[in-house]
């Protein structure tokens, strides 16, 4: 069921919320998508205060890096497993005012640093379409809960593709708007210059409604934008006549999965039939191949600095020792998983003064060139599109990827472009490959979410994959 359908029948909101809670509990054994269940009784008791809200009575799951006052917020890390925030993230307040009812904190890759959702301290999240496959990460719990029909909306965060890739793997809509469009205040950070807040939904129109609730300037987030919030739903018509769409040749060339390419081509033909002007464009291949290493450096350098406060003294799971220094070392050794510690090591390597210029600053310079390259394409086109991933979700134990191949460097990681530029980007389901969902990704110009959502709606109209059920 979608948000819009729920809003047509608010009289049965309580019933639906309780049903969502039941489904959440039932799903846990298979999916392992939830870190903390939230008892909605108190929120239900206050439902009348939010009559007419855009999310009135809608059950919602939050990624576990969203601070919730009085509710455990672990970011799926052992170091924060006893952390109970004393404040709400700005988006929590906004959703509550709009009538949303929170029922779960969803699993994620530890501290949002990963793309598999296999590194949570509570164990891997499984894909509702095939429990042997990953849900993707880092927002895998949120994606799985929406895909399984537990909730119609879940919050995620996206630093490299952490909403848009799991959306593709789980067969749902995953949307991150422009950097600054949604406040990041109260979101446990990963990489401050790349982090975005966004949503998973079961339709493009629901993504539009969600954005209308979440968007807007917040003085607590100095990077949030003052541009007015639009009525996004009004713009979602699916009208693409005369719209200019660029297909990213570099990504297509790096994909060898025929079913993914077939689904993609069907969507493109559908867009043309609706009157869109579609061209194949090529970006500078050297820049695209430098995208992942540049990202890796920027993200991990920023993360190393952001998480230096996790020391067990003021908060976190302290491990006792004889000295303050030993407390911090033991707390951080036992509190962070191996992947996190590896990433911090790489991050600090890039920040050493002897490496800073040739690695970290070089990555930031390359970022500017990449952003200029993307802007060049979007000067002539309303959006650019490509398959969100080179295929369906990998198996949980899959280690076969070649990290130096074009498939990995370009096809698997091109959505980082949306984080480097900050431009709005959305993944929409487009079909199946080997029984697993695959998505198409669309990216538009800064703060032009209305246009992006409008074109995404056309894709949904073509595929018919709105509110589709697992196994459809």
């Amino acid at each position, binding site marked *: 069921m979608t948000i819009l359908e729920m809003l047509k029948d608010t009289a049965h909101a309580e019933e639906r919320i309780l049903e969502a809670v039941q489904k959440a509990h039932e799903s846990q054994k298979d999916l392992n998508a939830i870190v903390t269940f939230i008892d909605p009784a108190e929120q239900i008791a206050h439902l009348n205060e939010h009559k007419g809200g855009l999310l009135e009575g809608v059950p919602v799951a939050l990624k576990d890096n969203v601070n919730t006052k009085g509710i455990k917020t672990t970011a799926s890390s052992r170091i924060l497993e006893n952390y109970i925030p004393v404040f709400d993230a700005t988006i929590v307040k906004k959703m509550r005012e709009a009538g949303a009812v929170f029922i779960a904190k969803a699993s994620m890759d530890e501290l949002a640093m990963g793309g598999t959702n296999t590194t949570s301290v509570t164990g891997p999240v499984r894909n509702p379409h095939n429990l042997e496959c990953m849900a993707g990460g880092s927002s895998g719990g949120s994606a799985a809960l929406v895909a399984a029909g537990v909730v119609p909306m879940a919050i995620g965060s996206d630093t490299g593709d952490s909403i848009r890739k799991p959306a593709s793997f789980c067969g749902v809509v995953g949307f991150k708007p422009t950097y600054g469009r949604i406040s990041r205040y109260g979101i446990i950070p990963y990489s401050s210059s790349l982090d975005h807040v966004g949503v998973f939904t079961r339709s493009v129109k629901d993504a539009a409604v969600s954005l209308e609730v979440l968007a807007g300037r917040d003085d607590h987030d100095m990077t949030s934008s003052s541009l007015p919030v639009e009525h996004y739903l009004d713009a979602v018509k699916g009208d693409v006549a005369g719209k200019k769409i660029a297909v990213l040749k570099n990504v297509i060339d790096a994909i060898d999965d025929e079913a993914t390419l077939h689904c993609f081509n069907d969507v493109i033909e559908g867009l043309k039939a609706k009157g869109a002007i579609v061209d194949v464009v090529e970006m500078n291949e050297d820049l695209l191949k430098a995208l992942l290493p540049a990202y890796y450096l920027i993200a991990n350098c920023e993360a190393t600095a952001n998480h230096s406060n996790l*020391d067990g003294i003021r908060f*976190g799971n*302290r491990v006792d020792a*004889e000295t303050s220094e030993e407390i911090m070392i033991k707390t951080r050794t036992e509190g962070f998983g191996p992947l996190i*510690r590896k990433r911090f090591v790489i991050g600090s390597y890039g920040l050493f003064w002897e490496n800073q210029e040739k690695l970290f600053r070089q990555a930031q310079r390359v970022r500017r060139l990449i952003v200029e390259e993307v802007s060049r394409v979007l000067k002539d086109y309303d959006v650019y599109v490509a398959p969100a991933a080179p295929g369906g979700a990998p198996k949980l134990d899959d280690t076969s990827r070649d990290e130096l191949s074009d498939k990995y460097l370009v096809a698997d990681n091109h959505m980082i472009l949306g984080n480097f530029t900050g431009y709005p980007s959305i993944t929409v389901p487009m079909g199946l490959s080997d029984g697993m969902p695959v998505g198409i990704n669309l990216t538009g110009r800064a703060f032009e979410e209305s246009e992006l959502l409008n074109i995404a709606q056309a894709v949904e109209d073509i595929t018919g994959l709105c509110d589709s059920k697992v196994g459809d």
Partner: protein
Amino acid sequence: MEEIKDQAYFKALARKLMFELTDEEADDIVQEFKTLCVQLQLLEAIDTTGVEPMVYPFETPTVYLREDEENHTISQEEALSNASKVVQGHFSVPRVVK
């Protein structure tokens, strides 16, 4: 091309970041660093002469001066509520001067 580093190098680096690595974890980093070095060559090969580093996606100012008025405060009790050890309203750590 980055110089290949050994296990001891990464263990020492981890210690500076206030955590330890097991032998196996340090070994993993040594192996992964070899792949990373090849990827970094792709980055280093880009000519960035005269290009300014990009720190944030947009360079339009979003930071404004505000009146110096107290807002958004939390109580002492709230500030200390997540600390493992609190003594007389302070975060508590082992004695530093002995």
